[in-house]
């Protein structure tokens, strides 16, 4: 069968068939009702019988009269026959019968007859045989009248019947035609029904295929897919969802989503579903999803869509995508960025330091002339004057004198050399040229080394080392610098200590730092100078008369600070104590 079902044409045809069906049905029913009504036969159509009975009554009246003339009957019979004739006339004069008589044009004859009968009534009531012939003559035309009326009635009846039958036939023909039309319309409807059934079966099978395909897509999707109806009950739950949530479809479908897993009851997810049920699309990214028996949550992206049919929202569909890898990549990116920033700031700091050193060096060179003129002039002057005296004395000079003056000059030059060394040290420090190579150092060993050296050069000055009862551990520092700082502090102490007093070196520690205190008695540093003693080239009033360059403490402090430590003054009234602080552990110098 190659019939194709064009829906528009089919619909129009079906509609037309239904319309035709209804119209023809109503029409034929109308016609049938008409026929049914018309087929009620009324007694008025029984005129032939009425007239026949009237004729019989008239004839019997005449017969009875003839008998009466011969005294063959009695008054009662005459009255009876006359009454019967009268009743026939009365019937004819009544309603429908009267109208019929008028219809056939015999009304006047009937009226005349009625009058005649009224006139002869007295003669009948008191019948005398002598009246017989006159009465018979009077009644003689009555049967003829009934006969004529019967003829007319027959003709009228047949005319009417023929007409009526014709109307029936025409109505029946129309009804038959209508029935044929109804059958045709029914046939069209049947064909339309068959075709639309076939179409619908075809549509159904297509729908089924599409549904199966959708089902396959959903179940094989790597994305978690679920759907909920308007009340929030789960209606769909695919395999990927099962893997993500650890719940099977049997556990999820048909239950309120918030009861399936706590994840769906957290506020953003709940709101997302609510919004989708109100017809909006929603996205959530990198939501933490805690799976059963796992400490580290997955990160999932969620997309909510409303499920619509025309304008009605039937439910919502939710896609859940495992975005853990992306999240990790993002986190790694962030870490890399942090590290990079750290690196940049470190480099920036190095550059700043370099710049600082550059500036210091420039400053050193600028100040160098002034320093030379100020600090170096004195020893130069001493040497110069000693040598001048020598020259002036010439040959007169004794060897002792030469020796003495030369020694003075050499001393002055010696001091100048030391000054130059120190100045260069300070300058190098300023310029950052001395670097710190920090390692874990045994501070006790350094203290011992320094004190042993100082004892050999300090003319028998007593140097006491007080060791801590507990092992203070190691300091984290450059051992050479620590030694230099300690040497400076101990030599200062030796220099400024009151005669015959011991130098006490103590070391101890706390959680973070090691401390080494170097104390001497006498020559306390005046209160107002304490803040300045670490400034370069400052020499305290108590240093008058002793050799010094004024840069020792500056260098000591600078070196200590380079290693994350410090040198500080802890003076009391009797004792001067300098404390070297060194960190125990590595820590950033920033």
């Amino acid at each position, binding site marked *: 069968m190659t019939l194709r079902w064009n829906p528009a044409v089919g619909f129009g045809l079906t509609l037309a068939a239904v319309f035709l069906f209804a119209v023809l049905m109503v029409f034929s029913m109308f016609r049938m009702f008409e026929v049914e009504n018309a087929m009620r036969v009324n*007694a*008025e159509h029984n005129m032939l019988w009425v007239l026949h009975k009237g004729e019989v009554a008239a004839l019997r009246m005449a017969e009875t009269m003839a008998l009466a003339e011969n005294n063959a009957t009695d008054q009662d019979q005459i009255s009876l026959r006359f*009454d019967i004739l009268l*009743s026939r006339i009365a*019937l004819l004069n009544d309603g429908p019968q009267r109208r019929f008589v008028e219809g056939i044009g015999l009304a006047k004859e009937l009226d005349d007859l009625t009058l005649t009968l009224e006139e002869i009534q007295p003669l009948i009531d008191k019948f005398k045989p002598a009246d017989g012939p006159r009465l018979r003559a009077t009644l003689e035309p009555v049967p003829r009248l009934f006969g004529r009326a019967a003829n007319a009635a027959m003709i009228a009846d047949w005319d009417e019947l023929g007409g009526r039958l014709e109307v029936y036939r025409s109505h029946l023909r129309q009804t038959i035609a209508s029935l044929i039309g109804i059958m045709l319309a029914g046939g069209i409807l049947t064909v339309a029904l068959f075709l639309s059934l076939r179409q619908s079966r075809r549509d159904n099978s297509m729908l089924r295929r599409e549904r199966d395909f959708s089902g396959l897509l959903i179940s094989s999707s790597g994305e978690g897919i679920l759907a909920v109806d308007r009340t929030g009950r789960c209606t769909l739950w695919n395999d990927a969802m099962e893997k993500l949530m650890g719940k099977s479809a049997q556990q999820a479908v048909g239950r309120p989503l918030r009861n399936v897993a706590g994840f769906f009851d957290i506020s953003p997810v709940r709101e997302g579903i609510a919004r989708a049920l109100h017809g909006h699309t929603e996205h959530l990214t990198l939501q933490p999803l805690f799976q059963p028996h796992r400490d580290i949550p997955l990160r999932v992206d969620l997309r909510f869509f409303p499920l619509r049919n025309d304008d009605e929202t039937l439910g919502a569909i939710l896609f859940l995508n495992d975005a853990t890898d992306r999240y990790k990549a993002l986190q790694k990116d962030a870490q890399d960025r942090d590290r990079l920033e750290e690196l940049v700031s470190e480099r920036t700091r190095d550059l700043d330091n370099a710049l600082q050193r550059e500036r210091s060096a420039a400053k050193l060179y600028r100040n160098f002339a002034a320093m030379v003129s100020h600090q170096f002039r004195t020893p130069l002057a001493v040497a110069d004057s000693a040598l001048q005296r020598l020259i002036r004395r010439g040959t007169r000079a004794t060897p002792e004198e030469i020796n003495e003056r030369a020694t003075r000059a050499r001393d002055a030059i010696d001091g100048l050399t030391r000054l130059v060394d120190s100045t260069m040290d300070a300058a190098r420090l300023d310029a950052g040229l001395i670097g710190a190579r920090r390692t874990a150092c045994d501070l006790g060993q350094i203290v011992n080394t320094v004190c042993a050296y100082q004892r050999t050069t300090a003319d028998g000055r007593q140097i006491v080392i007080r060791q801590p009862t507990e092992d203070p551990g190691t300091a984290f520092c450059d051992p050479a610098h620590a030694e230099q700082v300690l040497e400076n502090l101990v030599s200062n102490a030796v220099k400024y200590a009151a005669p015959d007093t011991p130098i006490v070196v103590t070391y101890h520690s706390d959680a973070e730092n090691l401390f080494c205190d170097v104390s001497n008695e006498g020559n306390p540093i005046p209160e107002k100078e304490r803040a300045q003693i670490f400034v370069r080239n400052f020499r305290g009033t108590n240093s008058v008369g002793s050799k010094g360059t004024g840069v020792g403490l500056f260098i000591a402090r600078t070196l200590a600070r380079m290693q994350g430590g410090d040198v500080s003054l802890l003076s009391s009234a009797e004792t001067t104590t300098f404390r070297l602080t060194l960190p125990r552990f590595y820590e950033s110098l920033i």
Partner: protein
Amino acid sequence: MQTQAGAGLVGVLCVFAFTANAQNDVILRVSGQISGGTVSLDREAISALPSVQIITTTSVTDGKHSFTGFLMRDLLDRLDAEGETVTAIAVNDYVVDIPMADFYDYDVIVADSMDGVALSRADKGPLWIIYPRDEHEVLQDIRYDYRWVWQLSQLEVR
């Protein structure tokens, strides 16, 4: 004809005046399967039956008319009529068989007056069987119309 069967009648028939008096003309004779064989009724006997009125159209007159008379079944009951059919015979020799059931299914009366005027023999009197035509559509049919016997004079229960 006048009955001589009065002596054999049971009490129930005493309500009817069975008489040989020629003054009281018999207007209805009942015969056939009834107690007493044959019963003749005059006007007085008829008026002793409960009076019933029917207002109805007829097939031979225009408009509605009020008919007064007695229920056919009242009469038949009093006469212990037993049978299927009642043959009604009129003065004018009209004869028709009426199923007995008609009188029990419908309030069929035997009227002796129309619109308050006694029916005369010169019209449809003295008695006319009237069906309650307007109350039952099924009665509006020519097969019932021919049971409206006028000038009724005789009933035969069979």
